């Protein structure tokens, strides 16, 4: 799973470049932290040498030196941490922001594929994994500098012994590199297992009401248990292999010490050979040199894991430029709170006619979709799309709004070709109420405005048009009422009318409803259509509905079957001329 267009190193470099200053400071500070242990090593050697060779140096001198060193190290460490936390936070935030931005660039109905839980794991674990790996590059630099200095000092004492110490280390790093492939696979499996569990838990609580009502709590949890066990196995494999590799690295210290004893036995025993102080220095450095080697090995493994995570995040971009992940963005973490510029409405935005020609779209890998749909919506007209389940009504709306990318056909706004419906068919040109609208855990006001700056009067007017004003009166905090996660504190009908008010507040040229009235009672629906058609003067409406109050008001009714429009005309005309229309509505209601 390597990313050919964007190798991991290139992505990491991209991320580093956008925080160049902090990264440079990180390299400097963390290299210092790596290099500093050379000082106590030399102090320790001095101490043992002073005992063995009876140079008479005072213990107090060594104590003063070592305490001074300790204070210095703490100071550098605090600085390094401070710099690193800012670096790491910004880098991680940038990744998340870029993914989010990309999601909003794509045709919205296809932007998110896979369950929300699984998608969240990309925003959470995958970002953390890659971020850690980038932080570790700094340690790589520090470890290397330390390694060079340590080897230089040790070679000065005994070149042969130094070689004997380093030989096993090199072997170990090579070994780790060879095992790296397996680590990557195990890690992928463990991640996939975690993804499945997050997904299952997310869906479980997304569907909590259905589960409760069905009394199915137990069987749902049994399913979770099975997934859990799969993850345990994957985790044990992953962690044991990692522990084995780490152990190999730590073991180099002990084996290295043994080698020093073995190889240096003669020199240590001989007068004028290796002193105990020098032996102590060797062993002390061995620990740190092995630390460095360990970091290299771990880094290689991490780097491979990061490749997995990057691949998953690139997959989320769905064909977007991979390097997009690490594009520099202004995160606006400091300074005044970000404002959203209002979209100005120009006279040329006004809709005179909307024309759709040969619009075609298929959901990838299926026969479902729409084929060669033609449509004319003159200003101020009211058009109802109807048809059986799966006949393509919702798909037509989505393709028109650019929520799915059309395979063929064109959309003309006042006769001019709309190049990118997904950026054009938004307010002030168009706005949309989906069949099952989503609200967000914010206040009612925020849900309606989504960043706009409307006055309360305008908001209340939109609420009235959507026949929501009585519900508003009953809400404890009025417009500031929190609607709960996904609007769960509102009833189904309230959610739909809130979504309608959200659309109306934008006063778009084209109103698009998908089966708006499905959760409404007859009277509310009547009120809603009346207010909508009378008060949104000049607005053009395209509506999916099977309901008579809508059908009978329509200027034109479009009847869809298997992705095509098979009949069009007024309700009366269709009743008289279309068999398909008649068969659809036959038996709907008695009397």
């Amino acid at each position: 799973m390597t990313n050919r267009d964007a190798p991991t190193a290139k992505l990491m470099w991209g991320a580093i470049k956008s925080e160049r200053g902090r990264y440079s400071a990180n390299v400097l500070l963390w290299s210092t932290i790596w290099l500093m242990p050379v000082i106590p090593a030399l102090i320790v050697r001095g101490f043992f040498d002073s005992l063995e060779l009876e140079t008479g140096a005072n213990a107090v001198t060594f104590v003063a030196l070592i305490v001074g060193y300790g204070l210095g190290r703490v100071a550098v460490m605090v600085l390094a941490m401070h710099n690193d936390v800012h670096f790491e936070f910004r880098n991680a935030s940038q990744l998340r922001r870029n993914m989010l931005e990309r999601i909003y660039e794509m045709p919205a109905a296809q932007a998110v594929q896979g369950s929300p839980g699984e998608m969240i794991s990309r925003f959470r674990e995958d970002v953390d994994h890659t971020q850690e790996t980038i932080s570790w590059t700094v340690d790589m630099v520090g470890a290397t500098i330390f390694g060079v200095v340590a080897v230089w000092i040790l070679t000065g004492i005994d070149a042969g012994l130094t070689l004997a110490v380093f030989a096993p280390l090199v072997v170990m790093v090579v070994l780790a590199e060879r095992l790296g492939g397996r680590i990557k696979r195990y890690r992928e499996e463990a991640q996939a297992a975690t993804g499945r569990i997050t997904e299952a838990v997310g869906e479980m609580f997304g569907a909590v009401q259905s589960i409760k009502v069905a009394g199915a709590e137990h069987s749902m949890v049994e399913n979770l248990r099975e997934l859990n066990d799969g993850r345990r196995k994957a985790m044990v494999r992953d962690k044991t292999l990692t522990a084995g590799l780490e152990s190999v690295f730590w073991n180099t210290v002990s084996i290295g010490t043994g080698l020093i004893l073995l190889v240096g036995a003669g020199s240590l025993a001989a007068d004028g050979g290796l002193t105990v102080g020098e032996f102590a220095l060797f062993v002390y450095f061995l620990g740190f040199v092995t630390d460095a080697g360990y970091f290299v090995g771990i880094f290689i493994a991490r780097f491979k894991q990061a490749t997995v995570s990057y691949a998953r995040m690139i997959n989320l971009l769905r064909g977007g430029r991979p390097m997009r992940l690490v594009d520099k963005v202004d995160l606006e973490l400091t300074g005044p709170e970000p404002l959203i510029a209002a979209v100005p409405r120009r006279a040329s935005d006004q809709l005179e006619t909307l024309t759709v020609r040969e619009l075609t779209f298929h959901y990838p890998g299926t026969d479902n979709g729409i084929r060669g749909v033609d449509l004319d919506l003159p200003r101020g007209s009211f058009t109802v799309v109807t048809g059986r389940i799966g006949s393509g009504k919702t798909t037509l709306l989505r393709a028109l709004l650019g929520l799915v990318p059309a395979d063929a056909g064109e959309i003309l706004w006042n006769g001019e070709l709309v190049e990118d419906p997904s950026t054009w068919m938004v307010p002030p040109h168009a706005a949309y109420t989906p069949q099952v609208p989503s609200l967000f855990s914010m206040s009612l006001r925020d849900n309606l405005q989504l960043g706009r700056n409307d006055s309360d009067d305008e908001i209340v007017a939109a609420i009235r048009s959507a026949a929501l004003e009585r519900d508003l009166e009953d809400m404890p905090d009025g417009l500031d009422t929190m609607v709960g996660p996904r609007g769960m504190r509102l009833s189904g009908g309230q959610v739909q009318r809130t979504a309608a008010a959200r659309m109306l507040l934008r006063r778009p040229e084209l109103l698009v409803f998908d089966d708006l009235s499905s959760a409404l009672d007859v009277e509310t629906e009547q009120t809603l259509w009346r207010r909508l058609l009378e008060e949104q003067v000049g607005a053009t409406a395209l509506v999916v509905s099977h309901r008579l109050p809508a059908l009978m008001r329509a200027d034109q009714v479009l009847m869809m079957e298997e992705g095509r429009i098979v009949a069009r005309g007024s309700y009366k005309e269709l009743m008289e001329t279309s068999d398909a229309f008649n068969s659809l509505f036959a038996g709907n209601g008695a009397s």
Partner: protein
Amino acid sequence: MIPVRSYVRILRKYLRPLRGRVALLAVVALTGIALQLAGPQLIRAFLDGATRGTEVSKLVPLAIWFIVIAVFQQGAKVWATYISVDVGWSATNDLRADLAEHVLHLDMGFHKEHTPGALIERIDGDVTSLSNFFSSFTIMVIGNLILIAGILVLLWVEHWLIGLGVTGFVVLIFSGMVKVQSIAVPRWKAVRARSAELMGFIGEQLGGTEDIKANGGDRFMIARFTNILRQWLPEHVRGRHGFSMLWAMGIMTFITGLVVVFFIGSILFTDGIMTLGSVYLVFHYVQMSHDPMEQIRAQMEDFQKAGAGIARVEDLLARHSAIADDGVTPLSGGSVEVHFDHVTFWYNDEDGETDRPVLDNLNFTLPKGRVLGVLGRSGSGKSTLARLLTRLYDPQQGTIRLDGTPLSHVPVEDLRHRVAMVTQDVQLFGASIRDNLTFFDHDVDDERLLDVIDQLGLTAWLATLGDGLDSRLEASGSGLSAGQAQLLAFTRIFLRDPGVVILDEASSRLDPATEELIERAVDRLLENRTGIIIAHRLATIERADDILILEDGLIVEAGDRARLAADPDSRLSHLLATGLEEVLA
């Protein structure tokens, strides 16, 4: 403090069946520690020999033994890791499942306040930190503590002054660590809460991209994302500096250890009490105690997370559903009589404040086998009525009775098997059709499923999916039209044998042709059962025997449908008149 006690309290139940493996873990880990302690003794013998001019041929075996011991010690360590990870995940997997079940049983009031994203963080995220905690705790903390204890014993044996010095040093360092830890944990809690908030927010957006994009709200969502980050950053920095303090403690540990060696070593060596090899031994052991302390220190971060996680898990486990499930009276089979006895209900606000009642002193009886049509504008309390009957909520006043038994006397599981409901929003899973229908209950056989699907006239549709019952639905049921989803919801309740069937706006989103399909099936479902149809459409209540019209939580009209329809002054006939165009066709 390291949250061992809470941890053991939570996991006692789950660790008990794993006793054998925990014991093996202890043996393996202790062997490793003994080997680790033996190494430096060999070095001392070697160094003393070397400085006294012992022959090299006698020194070499010591060096070889040293290497052999090192290899075995590492083997023990890997084995111990394997066991600890396995035990840790086994134990927490059971906890995770039980916690999920506990939370599933919590009342809807709780679920309205908690996004699925936040619950993922609490059930999977927090429990995972517990499983990491187990492996790191047994190996890194207990193992290392025993190692340090072993070192201290050996040093006391060496010379009391050395023993005293190093013991003082260890005590000093540990008390320091504990203090620092208590500062750092609350900081981490704040960071974790913020992260959960951000993930909840992102999850919600991912489910609503169409709404956001088509209404021009994308910039706003990005701005909100930024605002959460702005609040998170300062807390994140503070959290990390909690970690800096712990590291600083580690550095001071190392420095203090050297100070002890420098002072005591030079005194005892000069006095001729210790050999150079012995001074090195002390130095080596103090060095050795540094690594375990570093590791314990490094684990502190995990402990902070685990500590915060444990607190939240305990918090979650301590929550009780507002719906008490202590009934013992089973419901009899067959059709059921439903009686609302002066029922008043209001939704409690987050702050415990109350709103006006959603249902106000509701009083009616629905005899066995009758079908009740409930009418009223949205917000009139129709859906609430269904939620009370399935005990998603309990009324504040009054009693609901089934066959004369108050709902609270019936076990909840029993109740929900006997009272079936189809709601407006069909909630589906990214799983096979089979699992979606059975809620992953593997005891339901295919034959029965296919039979029910056939009754619903869905067989032809199922065939188009390619893999029949094995066809996977996309997550959240996308790829299905709302009408198709509704049909699946019907199949779900057809699978049970309820005594009461509630259809809450069930047919509202179906096209007329599919609706006809459903009508037939509903007829069959209502046969010999009590039915409540909450309807917005007059056509839907055609089959009702009785009618109940609600307005602002009050019954404004109730009675036999035919009688009401015949009475020109009834609200029903007014509705029939205004909604006449609805039934024109």
